[in-house]
């Protein structure tokens, strides 16, 4: 009897709490995420589309964007192969110190990017043993493009692996068995049975590592040497423009990177919807 009289009051109180919590959540996201993006947009509007277009199409900013894009693409292509192979080996095969290797996969997420850059300079820099030997053959890793790719490979290492691994673990083996008993070769089984199942996960991991590679700063700024037209990537270019007070230049290249990040997120959303559609079929 008593509790039944309490119900309307309780739901009323709950509704108030819910609105309070919802307001808190929306407010926090609005303040922390939306407001800074809006500020960048407002700053671009303030400079005027003409100035933004001029700054974006400058030879040096275009060169930095192109370089970033190409190096990120190379990194992602390498990641797709090595990441899928690593996930496969970690899930399907047994070998000594497998647990240790599995633990190492996450390490690039935890190591500060500056430390990554310094580690690579120590190992491959002109003063190191490897660097000296390669230098004799005219090969330069640090302060050149191979160094940037190496840094990008390090920081994006976990994405494809961590995307593919859970799918591979949960994958039913009956399809593979069926293909095998029907006489398919291992390569046929991989390309016609395993790969289609893994594809959404591989693409998601690739998209994540592409967005990370596009935006990477800490390790690249140390490794690259930042020579315009040669090793100056877009994030480092933006940093340089901020430092030299050219805020319009920084705004324009930032807008390009931000648009790319948005598109990648939308792409990942569609990849995941597509894979969910396939699951229900």
């Amino acid at each position, binding site marked *: 009897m008593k509790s039944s009289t309490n119900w309307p009051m309780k739901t009323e109180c*709950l509704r108030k709490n819910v609105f309070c919590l919802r307001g808190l959540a929306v407010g926090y996201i609005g303040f922390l995420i939306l407001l800074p993006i809006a500020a960048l947009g407002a700053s671009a509007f303030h400079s005027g589309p003409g100035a933004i277009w001029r700054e974006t199409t400058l030879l040096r900013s275009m060169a930095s964007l192109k370089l970033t894009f190409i190096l990120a693409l190379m990194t992602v292509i390498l990641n797709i192969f090595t990441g899928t192979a690593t996930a496969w080996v970690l899930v399907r095969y047994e070998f000594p110190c497998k647990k240790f290797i599995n633990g190492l996969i996450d390490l690039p997420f935890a190591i500060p990017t500056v*430390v990554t850059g310094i580690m690579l300079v120590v190992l491959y820099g002109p003063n190191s043993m490897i660097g000296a030997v390669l230098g004799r053959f005219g090969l330069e890793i640090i302060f050149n493009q191979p160094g940037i790719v190496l840094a990008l490979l*390090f920081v994006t290492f976990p994405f494809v692996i961590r995307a593919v691994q859970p799918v591979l673990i949960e994958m039913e083996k009956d399809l593979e068995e069926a293909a095998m008993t029907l006489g398919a070769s291992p390569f046929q089984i991989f390309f016609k049975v395993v790969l289609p199942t893994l594809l959404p996960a591989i693409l998601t991991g690739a998209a994540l590592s592409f967005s990370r590679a596009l935006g990477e700063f800490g390790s690249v700024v140390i490794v690259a040497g930042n020579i315009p037209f040669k090793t100056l990537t877009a994030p480092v270019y933006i940093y340089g423009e901020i430092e030299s007070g050219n805020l319009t230049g920084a705004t324009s290249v930032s807008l390009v990177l931000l648009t790319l990040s948005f598109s990648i997120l939308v792409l990942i959303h569609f990849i995941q919807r597509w894979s969910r559609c396939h699951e229900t079929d």
Partner: protein
Amino acid sequence: MKRTNPVKFWAQRLSLRHVLTGMVLLWVLLLILFPLGGMFQKVLAAEPVSCLKSLLAPSARLSFKLTFWLTLGAVILNTFFGLVIALILVRQNFRGKLLLEGLIDLPFAVSPVVTGFMFITLFGNNSIMGHFFDEKGIRIIYAFPGMMLVTLFVTFPFVIREIVPVLKEYGVEQEESAYVLGASSWQTFRKVTLPSIKWGLLYGITLTIARSIGEFGAVLVVSGAIINKTQTATLYVHQQFTDFNYTGAFAAASVLALISFVFIMMIQFSQKKVKGGTWE
């Protein structure tokens, strides 16, 4: 017809298996272990006294202290708001929810330099907000509040991303029954919801800590890296390195690498309890 187990089938092709495993191990060795080993060797080769001395220098100590406060702030605020946002995203339906969900991942995709620059355009000298706070005598850019804000931005998704799948899987039945039995919403949360998401939450917090310790680009842009004032540990490493003070840089970098190694071990530990469901 003989039915063969695929694991056995792959295992029979020893050559392929061995080649693949060998190649992957070599790749991990070259890409991850080699650089780590190289740096630790450099530190061990240097004089331990000078390493220790550089770590105990006032500017080094101050930078680690600053990193500690930023990390603490990020953990407290993003855990609290992360819990609220995750609960709302999973348990409630409202207009604009899809947009809200899409925004959660954004900090992962945005370049740290762009993050820093966005906050400069928001709170910088020329902006309305910057002007407003400047008149009140509060500095945001090139000061602690700005650094705190960018750290919050870059670590924002971790806790939410880890809790949302757990909450979804867990369902509402137990919460509903607790509520019907007369528990208040706070009691329901504390005694029913929280224990079920404990490990996911812990994993999210660990990732938040690791990221806020390691954040460099965004903090560099916003802080101006003023020595003894707005220099975090990663900025200190960078400054020592660019000043050719390699002993100091390597020593501080090794400390950071060791800290991240400890966190990786913790992640491994909690991941066993979460069963992996991360990074989609």
